[in-house]
């Protein structure tokens, strides 16, 4: 190949210095290979570029090259043409890059988020080719597409059919009605009556083109009554089919579901299928009142017949007389009073009876209506299993919950009287009374001071009394100052106000004790102790 090309080069170029041509050839083996190796199967575009390069080679070969001292490698071939528009050598990587629209390189597998590698591998897996000869039986004949089955079926087809028919016969004899439907391919076969033999005259007329009525008189149905407005298709009515979303159904409310259940069991009568708001409210109030009445009746009964008689309902084993007289007699005889006899009775109660009485055991149903509620009704109100909920406990987020009680429609009570009754509000007079009481207390404090002053006076004469008075005053003031120092400083009128009450009448002992901060207030003989 190399020699061929060398000869080819020689032919084109003509004579030149030998070493130059040697260099050329030996250092450009690539070009030679490109030119000669691909014979017929190379796309023409590339051939053209190669030829272009060849032409250039031919042109430049006639120019003398300057040889350097160092005899280093030939530099890269620089062409006078501009590089093609759509690619360039990337400065960063040195690779050929498209001029526009270059995308950032996709990171390698190490940088993929987890799971991507397996998904990519699954996507890259080649699709299976190949056509299958069999066809699926969709569960009817398991193993039918196995190869060995096919082989054995051919061999034993007769046996299989004999066996299957034998197995079918006893079945057919057992249930004659159902089996023929099932043992066959479960397709319903319609029998169409063939019209070939008889054509009615109407059809003959139609075929032959003779005048005939529009509808076959034998097939024609008489005109019926016009549809009512309910049935007319252009009338707005609720579609029979399911609503497209379960959220569109009626929201179940405790009251409504209970009422519906009550109506179903016949306890109450509703106007329509579903209870209306009025009915709901009405029955709710009624139920409340009934409950209250019943509770009151029970309480009254308890009071009437006494506790032992009342609770003996839940103690089956207590057969004795439980009337008041009997209890009284028993008390007289044995000295056990009512409570003791009650305890005695309860000792005879069984556990189950206790639980029924207390009503705490969930296993024993208390509400007869709840017992009779069907499961879906219960689920509507209270939802299904809380851990594995099978039913959505549906609540309307925009619902305004009605907290009004059953006596909502009672007359509005007089708030003031109500509050007064319950002691939340007092009248103005009372308030002033209380305030006045507080004031008079303050007034009496000054008496106390004077009494204190007078008490000191006894031991000493006036000047000491004045001193002690002043001292007491000053002490009091000082104490008060030390206590409420900041307050006193900021509110100067306080000191004066404190002076005022001291001038009034004498205080009682309790008031003095209340008024004093601690017992030190009663220490008056300061000078003596000093």
């Amino acid at each position, binding site marked *: 190949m190399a020699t061929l090309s060398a000869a080819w080069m020689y032919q084109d170029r003509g004579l030149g210095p030998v070493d130059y041509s040697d260099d050329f050839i030996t250092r450009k083996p690539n070009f030679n290979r490109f030119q000669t190796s691909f014979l017929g199967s190379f796309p023409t575009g590339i051939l053209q570029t190669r030829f272009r390069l060849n032409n250039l080679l031919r042109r430049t070969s006639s120019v003398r090259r300057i040889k350097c001292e160092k005899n280093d490698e030939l530099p890269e071939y620089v062409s006078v043409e501009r590089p093609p528009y759509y690619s360039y050598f990337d400065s960063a990587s040195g690779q050929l890059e498209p001029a526009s629209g270059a995308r950032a390189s996709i990171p390698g597998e190490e940088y993929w988020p987890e799971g991507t590698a397996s998904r990519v591998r699954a996507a890259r897996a080649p699709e299976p080719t190949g056509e299958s000869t069999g066809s699926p039986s969709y*569960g009817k004949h398991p193993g039918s597409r196995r190869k060995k089955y096919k082989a*054995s079926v051919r061999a034993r087809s007769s046996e299989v059919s004999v066996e299957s028919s034998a197995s079918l016969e006893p079945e057919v004899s057992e249930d004659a009605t159902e089996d023929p439907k099932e043992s066959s391919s479960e397709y319903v076969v319609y029998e169409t009556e063939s019209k070939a033999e008889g054509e009615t005259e109407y059809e003959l007329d139609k075929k032959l083109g003779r005048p005939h009525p529009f509808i076959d008189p034998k097939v024609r149905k008489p005109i019926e009554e016009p549809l009512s407005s309910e049935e007319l298709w252009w009338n707005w009515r609720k579609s029979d089919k399911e609503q497209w979303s379960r959220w569109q159904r009626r929201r179940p409310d405790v009251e409504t579901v209970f009422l519906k259940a009550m109506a179903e069991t016949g306890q109450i009568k509703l106007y329509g299928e579903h209870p209306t708001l009025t009915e709901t409210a009405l029955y709710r109030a009624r139920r409340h009142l009934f409950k209250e009445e019943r509770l009151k009746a029970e309480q009254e009964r308890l009071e009437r017949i006494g506790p032992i008689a009342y609770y003996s309902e839940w103690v089956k084993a207590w057969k004795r007389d439980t009337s008041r007289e009997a209890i009284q007699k028993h008390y007289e005889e044995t000295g056990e009073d009512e409570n003791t006899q009650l305890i005695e009775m309860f000792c005879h109660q069984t556990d189950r009876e206790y639980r029924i009485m207390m009503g705490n055991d969930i296993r024993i149903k208390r509400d007869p209506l709840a017992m009779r509620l069907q499961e879906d009704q219960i689920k509507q109100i209270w939802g299904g299993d809380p851990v594995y909920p099978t039913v959505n406990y549906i609540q309307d987020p925009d619902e305004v919950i009605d907290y009004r009680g059953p006596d909502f429609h009672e007359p509005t009570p007089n708030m003031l009287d109500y509050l007064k009754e319950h002691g939340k509000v007092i009248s103005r007079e009372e308030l002033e009374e209380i305030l006045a009481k507080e004031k008079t207390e303050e007034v009496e404090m000054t008496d106390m001071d004077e009494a204190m002053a007078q008490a000191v006076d006894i031991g000493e004469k006036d000047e000491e009394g004045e001193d002690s008075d002043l001292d007491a005053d000053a002490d009091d003031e000082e104490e008060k100052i030390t206590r409420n120092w900041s307050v006193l400083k900021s509110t100067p009128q306080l000191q004066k106000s404190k002076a005022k009450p001291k001038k009034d009448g004498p205080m009682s002992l309790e008031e003095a004790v209340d008024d004093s901060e601690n017992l030190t207030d009663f220490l008056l003989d300061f000078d003596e102790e000093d």
Partner: protein
Amino acid sequence: MAISVPLHQLTYSFFSNPQWKWCAKPSYSFSNNSQNNIRAIKASVETPPFPLFQNPKLEETPADGLEPADPDFYKIGYVRSMRAYGVEFKEGPDGFGVFASKDIEPRRRARLVMQIPLELMLTIRQKLPWMFFPDIVPLGHPIFDIINSTDPETDWDLRLACLLLYAFDQDDNFWQLYGDFLPNADECTSLLLATEEDLMELQDPNLASTMREQQKRAREFWEKNWHSGVPLKIKRLAHDPERFIWAVSIAQSRCINMQVRIGALVQDANMLIPYADMLNHSFQPNCFFHWRFKDRMLEVMVNAGQHVRRGEEMTVNYMHGQMNDMLMQRYGFSSPVNPWNVIQFSGDARIHLDSFLSVFNISGLPEEYYHNSKISSDEESFIDGAVIAAARTLPTWSDGDVPLVPSIERKAVKELQEECRQMLAEFPTTSKQDQKMLDSMKEPRRTLEAAIKYRLHRKLFIDKVIKALDIYQDRILF
């Protein structure tokens, strides 16, 4: 997991049957992609269109009877995002098998070979509350009541059978398509489908009675739940008890019990997994199952460091540490090289464990004896799982450094061999007769074949023990 059809005979080919040694020549058109650029789609040989691209000579059916499986088999799974990388499914006279289509280098990481998504499987949780993945049982369907009536502890196979039958009935279920590739009642070797004479042929009264009980149990369950008053929805699932019993046998033999994590819940599940159950059993398996919980796929992965050659069978260990009768009972096959076979020896004769192990170059702990080929230099084709089983079941003594006394050892060996021969004599037929019977029967019933093979393997095992004792005796005084 397994196939009820004993293709496993080919699988424990590492040691036992020399006739099944693999030759490396590629003989299927499917695997010739590396050699030519045109994929030959048809298996038959046709005149090559272009002389440059010459197909190598193709054989119609290769020597060991393995043909590539129906292309639809993989296609129905591929469409539902199941993938098989580097393996292909082939079918032989004994059933399906999974074979490597290219060499796999031994890597430190286990290599993924197949992945099967959860939507293709039939899974049911082992304990209450039953949870089905995928949830195909609709609320209120009577099949759920039937499943609910089973005992949570023991009736897992009945539940799976009901689920399988229901899946066959459901219209867009994958098992309607996949069921065509399951072994049908003629091909299934599970002993549940065996007749009385097959059970007689087992020559193992315990196993026979166990199988009778199982059959009775399955049949009673069918009668209880498929009585004539039952709605059509249920009735059409299993018109006759044979179909139900077939479903139970499929469920028993192909069930994979794994602990899977789905969502946040880790549960023990009984799973019927479509393509993974075509893997056969081997005591030195290639592959194992792994559950990838992120996208709920079962992955079949090649063991790390396992060198797999092209055309080698991919195998899994179904049950670890069980005797042949358990394998037979559950999966319907048995193996002559089961390293967990047990023979009950009576008497006091004991041989020295350490010297027995060293004679055969068996190393490892008793739970995991293996043949150490690094020590043994010469080609030992005698040592296989049966010898390992012998090492486990023979009565042995081992007392630290106490050396053996050759005369006592020989005596013990003779006694043990005598016992083995007595055991062999108790069988009505010898192994040679069994083998002859197998060869002479043409087109036998699968269960019959399996039963005869079971007893043949038992006798072969005892034979092997005798031979091993012989060799041990020879090499005692190296």
